[in-house]
């Protein structure tokens, strides 16, 4: 088996797991064993991939058919950006799995949770290892369909209602994406990341603009950028706790990943002004939404949107320095966001709600929980020496270097507003008198496993801050990698001429 085999295995292993977990669906212990083995296995694979890629450069796995044009057959590819995202995503998926195993007794867990979860794992993997637009569409489908199942897993009225918003908007997104992919193929005759840059560059400008904007809208809807973000804060809070955590941490970031990929590779240096507007509005509208809420889960959901704005800002600024910071920012956001939602899940498990006016004194009840929240919240607000600070400094520095004063000012203001809403949560939920628990909802079991999972994610966030130096060098190399396929593309075009 060659090292290239890791790429397909990243997808095949969780799919095998999904199949197996369906076959043994009624044997819970077996199912859980399968799921954990698979999740741990993919995590190990992703780490191996990261080490390999960082040592030897991007890896490509191609099914070669003599004389077939590029992109006809399977063409998997992972560079540093992709493998970094894979590792962090797999770690999150594993941690959340552990958390959800602790959340409910074995008998309470829906037997469909783990199969759907594994399909989502496959989708996440597939999105990162692909070098083909249609593959990417299929990957998005995988994680969307499994997310539909997960978001409505318990099927209560609230979930059905908000799940409907989620499904309708995301089906629209799929349709849009499929349309965009089809039109790209119609115009260029290829969907391969290696052949597309050159092919798109030859298109007339109107077509370029159209394809560019269509892909931007499709992935932007997934990434929840302004003005296409509304579905997110409406649907995420209703989902089961761990599901929200993993959605919050990962799914939108895959949209961002796809945005970064397509924008840097297929349409380099376009849309800058548009993206800057989007970035600023996403940040500010998102954070205002967060400030307006009075429920921890909803506040955090709006923050997902707001923080996406920073990533778009980095993308809009462009260039290696800004993209380095952006990749670092995405890297840091995934565990931070996940951990905040995991903490929220514990609060809700203990008290039955996460409304600021119904819960109080959590710091008194559980010091470690408060500490975990504080670390992640301050990181989100960009307080040094936590990871959020490094990411923000990177993006803001790039912005100041390019003299985008207004955007930088907005970014800093949003940082302050983020602090406002984090303090709102802290002073509402963690300070004050301990409030009585709703006896119908506030049931606590297996707290330890949930806390351990949340703590490990928080620790990962702190670890990112501690190792920020080497990691930043890594993301710098990853940002440089982003332009590699274009070089390969030129080589291909050169060959064929």
């Amino acid at each position, binding site marked *: 088996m060659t090292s290239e085999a890791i790429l397909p295995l990243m997808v095949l292993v969780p799919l095998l797991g999904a199949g197996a977990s369906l076959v043994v669906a009624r044997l819970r212990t077996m199912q859980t064993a399968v799921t954990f083995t698979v999740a741990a296995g993919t995590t190990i694979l992703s780490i191996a991939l990261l080490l390999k890629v960082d040592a030897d450069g991007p890896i490509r796995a191609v099914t070669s058919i003599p004389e077939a044009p590029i992109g006809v057959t399977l063409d998997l590819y992972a560079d540093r950006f992709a493998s970094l995202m894979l590792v962090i995503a797999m770690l999150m998926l594993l941690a959340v799995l552990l958390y959800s195993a602790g959340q409910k007794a074995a008998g309470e867990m829906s037997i469909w949770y783990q199969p759907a979860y594994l399909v989502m794992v*496959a989708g996440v993997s597939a999105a990162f290892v692909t070098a083909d637009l249609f593959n990417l569409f299929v990957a998005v489908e995988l994680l969307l369909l499994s997310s539909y199942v997960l978001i409505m897993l318990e099927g209560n009225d609230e979930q059905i209602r908000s799940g409907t918003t989620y499904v309708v908007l995301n089906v629209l997104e799929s349709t849009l994406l499929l349309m965009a992919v089809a039109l790209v193929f119609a115009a260029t005759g290829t969907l391969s990341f290696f052949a597309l840059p050159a092919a798109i560059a030859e298109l007339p400008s109107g077509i370029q603009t159209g394809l560019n904007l269509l892909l931007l809208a499709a992935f932007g809807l997934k990434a929840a950028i302004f003005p296409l973000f509304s579905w997110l804060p409406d649907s995420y809070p209703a989902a089961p706790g761990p599901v929200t955590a993993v959605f919050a941490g990962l799914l939108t970031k895959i949209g961002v990943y796809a945005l970064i990929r397509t924008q840097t590779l297929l349409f380099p240096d376009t849309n800058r002004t548009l993206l800057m507007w989007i970035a600023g509005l996403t940040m500010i509208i998102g954070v205002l939404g967060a400030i307006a809420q009075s429920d921890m889960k909803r506040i955090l959901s709006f923050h997902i949107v707001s923080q996406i704005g920073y990533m778009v800002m980095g993308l809009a600024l462009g260039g290696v320095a800004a993209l380095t910071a952006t990749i670092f920012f995405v890297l840091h956001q995934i565990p931070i966001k996940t951990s905040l939602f995991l903490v929220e899940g514990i609060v809700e498990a203990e008290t039955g709600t996460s409304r600021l006016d119904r819960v109080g004194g959590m710091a008194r009840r559980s010091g470690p929980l408060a500490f975990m929240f504080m670390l992640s919240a301050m990181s989100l607000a960009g307080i040094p020496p936590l990871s959020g600070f490094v990411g923000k400094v990177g993006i803001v520095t790039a912005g100041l270097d390019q003299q985008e004063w207004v955007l930088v000012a907005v970014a800093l203001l949003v940082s302050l507003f983020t602090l406002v809403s984090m303090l709102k949560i802290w002073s509402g939920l963690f300070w004050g008198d301990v409030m009585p628990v709703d006896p119908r909802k506030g049931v606590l079991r297996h707290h330890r496993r949930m806390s351990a999972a949340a703590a490990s994610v928080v620790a990962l966030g702190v670890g990112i801050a501690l190792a920020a130096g080497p990691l930043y060098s890594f993301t710098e190399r990853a940002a440089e990698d982003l332009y590699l396929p274009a070089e390969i593309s030129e080589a291909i075009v050169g060959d064929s001429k």
Partner: protein
Amino acid sequence: MIALLALQGIVAMICLAPGRRSERWAIPVATFGMFIGFIWILTQASAVTSGEITTENWNWVPQLGLTLDFRLDGWALLMGLLIFGIGTLVLGYSHFYFPKRPDLGKIAGLLAAFAGAMWGLVAANGLFTLFLFWELTSVISFLLIGLEDRSSAARKAATRAFLVTGGGGIAMLAGLILLSSASGTSEISEILANPPTNGVVPAALVLVLIGAFAKSAQFPLHFWLPGAMAAPTPISAYLHSATMVKAGLVVVARFAPVFAEVPPWRFMVLTAGSISLLLGGMRALRQHDAKLILAHGTVSQLGLLMILLGVGTAGTTYAGVALLTAHALFKASLFLNIGVVDHQVGTRDIRRLRGLLRKLPVIAAATVTAGASMAAIPPTFGFVAKEKGLDALLKLDMGFAGTITVAAVVVGSAFTVAYTVRLLMGVFGNRAPGTAGHPPVNPARVKIPSWGFKFAPVLLAFLSLLFGLIAGPVGDWLGKVASSLDPASNAYHLVLWPGLNSALALSVVTWVGGSAIAWWLYRHERDADAGVGFATTLYDRSYNGLLLGARKITAVTHSGSLPVYVGVALATLIACFVAALAAGDLRDLGTTRITNSPIELGAVAVTAVLTVGILRTQRRFSAALLLGGAGYGLAIVFLSYGAPDLAFTQFLVETLVIVLYLLVLARLPEKFSRPPSWAPGVVRGLFAAAVGIGLALFAVATSAVRSDYPVGDRLTSLAEPAGGGKNVVNVILVDFRGWDTLGEIAVLAVAAVGVINLAAVARREMLRRGLFASAPANNGTRFGIRQSSVDGDVGPAPQWRSVILTTTTRGLVPVLAVTSVYLTFRGHNAPGGGFAGGLVLSIAVALRYFAEGPGSVRKLGIDPIKLMGAGLLLAAIVAGYPLATGGAPMESTIWKFTLPLIGQVKLVSSSFFDIGVYLVVVGSVVGAIRALVDTDETAGEANLADDLATDEVGTTR
């Protein structure tokens, strides 16, 4: 230096570690840690003052200039001594101040962490190092102000303090980044040695000053400080008078000698400093809480220090350093004295205190001494330092601005004298005549404080006096310290008695004027509390305005209405098309061929009509049928292009989808719910038309620009040699693009899982709501599907049973089953394949259901879920097995061998992949049908329909 940080960090962690909250040892441990810090810095003193400078650094994120740089020079030394010296005393004092609180570990740990952060701040030589510790002190201060978190006032005060200092910090961060990029380094000593003259420097300095003003409580960002007094007194003494609020001054003092000449530095510093000096003094005169008098006094004193340290001449810097030292000593002493009074008496309201002079003579003496230093009465150190300050200000050559500044300092100093007198009279004198409304305390009940408790305030007061008496040597030593800020300040000296000069004359004016004000106030003392300052009001209004504004804006940007969200998304899509069309050169639109064949044209026309019908119809059922019809139309188009596989699959899918619709629609309301009033039919029609036409135009234009020859030809020629199959569509699906197929069957499986899960949840929910009980009464039928049989009698309602259908089905189902297998296996070479085969079998199952009822589906004997799982497993294994031999995934292996009787057999590995597809399709569809049918048996009508009615989704909260 880093070791000292680590020490404080470890002490903090030990104290904060969970489970040890109530330990009494936490405070002694932290005190000891502070004391070690103090001793360590003291051991460095002689080396530092003789000019030896040590630096330490640790690279954190060097790419962004984020390094931890520390540099121990005179200024850091002085601040370090104050931080750890006063820290030791305050912590020792806390041991007596705090009774058995459950959170002693938290207090001790946070104070230790704070001392570490403050030390990092003063020893920082990197811009980001500075900022890091700057923010850390804000965070810890937030937690300490909010220590009494049950009080909403404390929570508000903590939040306010954090937001103001944090907001200032963010401004400062921007300034620091600008400064570092303008000078190409983030090392403060290098920036000061070679100051940048770039155009952004003034902006950078303004931003840095905003941060410094916020932290050092300067107008207009001063208002958080009095609120911070919500913290227990030792904490206020340490953080909010002696150390943290000096952080802004630390930075200003470092930058001023180099940057003071850059406008608007001096203007900002003098304005903010003077206003703070006057405003703080005036407000201190109106407080009744002794601690608040000191707090407002701190704002005032910090204003004076801001002026002295910010002007940037050697003389003022020197005086500022001296006055800062004096201030740290006397203000800490005063706070701690008031803390003793509060602790022993139970109040610190000067309207209630009386007769304490006799009960607390030592404390009274210490308070008076420290107070004298604050009011700059000789022979205290405060007097010596302020004389130097006045002298330096008088010698400034700043014209009118200088005069104004001196006037402000004189008036402010008079206020200082006045509030000092008022404080001393209020706490230790008799009650003022106008305060009868407040019950006086009973001095007889006042307990005598222990010597340990009194030690810290007395020692600090003593030092305030002693340093004044030995002003010469102290002044010389401070000169060495100040020379690290401005080398020229080494030439200055302190003397206890400067002789009769104009500075002394001004001092006399302040004493006399201040005493007069104090006397007047004493006569006119009133019961009423001082009002809230306008800056606080402004802040509160802004904060509330932010919340309100956020709510209003969010109500607009986030309506909670699904139709709006869809509308916005579609509008975005339309904008994309418009932008593309406007970008021009969508050439060749005119030369596009309209159609290839009349069949195509007819199919498209029919489809179009059906589509319009979907939009017009009010009934769900008709919409489902029309949708199916449109799908058939599309299949005909596929057929006209010579794609039988696609057409066949499309027909099957549409058929099955209609079946599934029927199962679901049985439980939904008959008609669609009404559209929202803002989007009447016309509007929605226009929207739909714009999207459709835009897409069509763009698609035509896009296809027209293709210059490369079609991929199809090449694929066709590759199918047989590479994929081992004659049917190119199938080869693409299971081989070339098998990866995507694998993903899509997983999508199908998981979709089925979703249907099965939701159906099960709905069934459970109906059980819970007791719908089973009422079900038999609910004998309605729709579309011939009986909805409410509980047991036994399964199948369509008798009147709907068709003998013909039942009989035909019995014969047809086995035929269909065999056909489906055949289709699957021949797929590689002729139209068919696993997908089509699976659909055929599923249709057979559906047929049986319609003929014989739900029981037939349940009695199938196979578990569709296992089928689905097995199919997925098989497909994934076939896709992955070439990896084992070093091949690429999905690579086909072709086996040729001869079997007896049958002859030559060619087996392609991808056929097994197709079997996997087949199994997944059958499992998914049958699983979904079975789940819906199962629910069907127990379905009540209206309630479930309500739950599932999804057209009008209101999620606004």
